[in-house]
């Protein structure tokens, strides 16, 4: 297995095993599959997310099933995938290697949770919602992009990958 830390350097060129068009189309397909999963699971409905977080109200544990299902399959496939020397359409695996718990990590996650609990939107369902032209999803995503851009301007060294 070859890994490199996720960094701000542009990714290496894709291995020429697949035509560039197939490689690019696969990203679209992966995004669409993720959207279908988010929609079927109910996570594109903000009320369902808030009803999970609002544990003292009409509690809806569905989000646990979503996370459980997603982690179960990714956990099962992850180790098997990383036994390969390289991904099918790229030259290296780009897995985050950071280990340190920082104030930035905790503070950022705390702010994210506040926004998530207030609106019931996190980034994925927000983006999916814009496809349905939902006004709240559009407002949310625009504001989220403004927030990201603001941080990038205040701190140009903000890493781009998770």
């Amino acid at each position: 297995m070859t890994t490199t830390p996720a960094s701000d350097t542009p990714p290496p060129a894709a291995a020429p095993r697949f035509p560039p068009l197939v490689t690019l189309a696969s990203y679209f397909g992966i995004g669409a599959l993720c959207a279908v999963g988010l929609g079927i699971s109910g996570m594109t409905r903000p009320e369902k997310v808030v009803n999970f977080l609002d544990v003292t109200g009409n509690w809806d544990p569905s989000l646990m099933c979503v996370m459980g299902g997603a982690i179960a399959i990714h956990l099962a496939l992850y180790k098997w995938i990383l036994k390969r020397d390289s991904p099918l359409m790229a030259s290296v695996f780009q897995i985050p290697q950071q280990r340190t718990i920082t104030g930035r990590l905790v503070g950022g996650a705390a702010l994210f949770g506040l926004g998530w609990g207030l609106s019931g939107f996190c980034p994925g369902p927000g983006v999916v919602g814009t496809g349905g032209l939902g006004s709240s999803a559009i407002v949310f995503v625009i504001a989220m992009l403004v927030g990201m851009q603001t941080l990038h301007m205040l701190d140009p060294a903000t890493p781009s990958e998770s």
Partner: protein
Amino acid sequence: MDQFTPIASTIGGLLIGLSASLMLLLHGRIAGISGILGGLLKRRAGDVAWRLLFLGGLVAGGLVFALVSPDLLTDDLQRSTATTAGAGLLVGIGTRLSQGCTSGHGVCGLSRFSPRSAVAVVTFMGTGVVAAYISQRILGGAL
């Protein structure tokens, strides 16, 4: 508990996990949506198309839902525009500071037992519960 949808939510979760696994198998990347969005804003040469295509797939999924099953996109929460915008700002700043959201830290990070992701998930779940409690129980959803 009347809205609990264990089967649909587990199936949806499996598809999300499958999508993250395909991202890793095909491209060696973590399917972290906030990171993919954030990187787009930096507009580095050769690093834009794949992000746009992935996000385009997400948007296309939403478009299909709107046509086929619009109730999947119902927003019954009815937050004010100002609240939604404030929440979006918090999510944008917060996910870039912590380098991940529910997908990158939640699904991908927890699956590989990343201590950073575990701390992030516990933290955003915690403040999410607090924000939901304040907005629903103290303010009665009127914000």
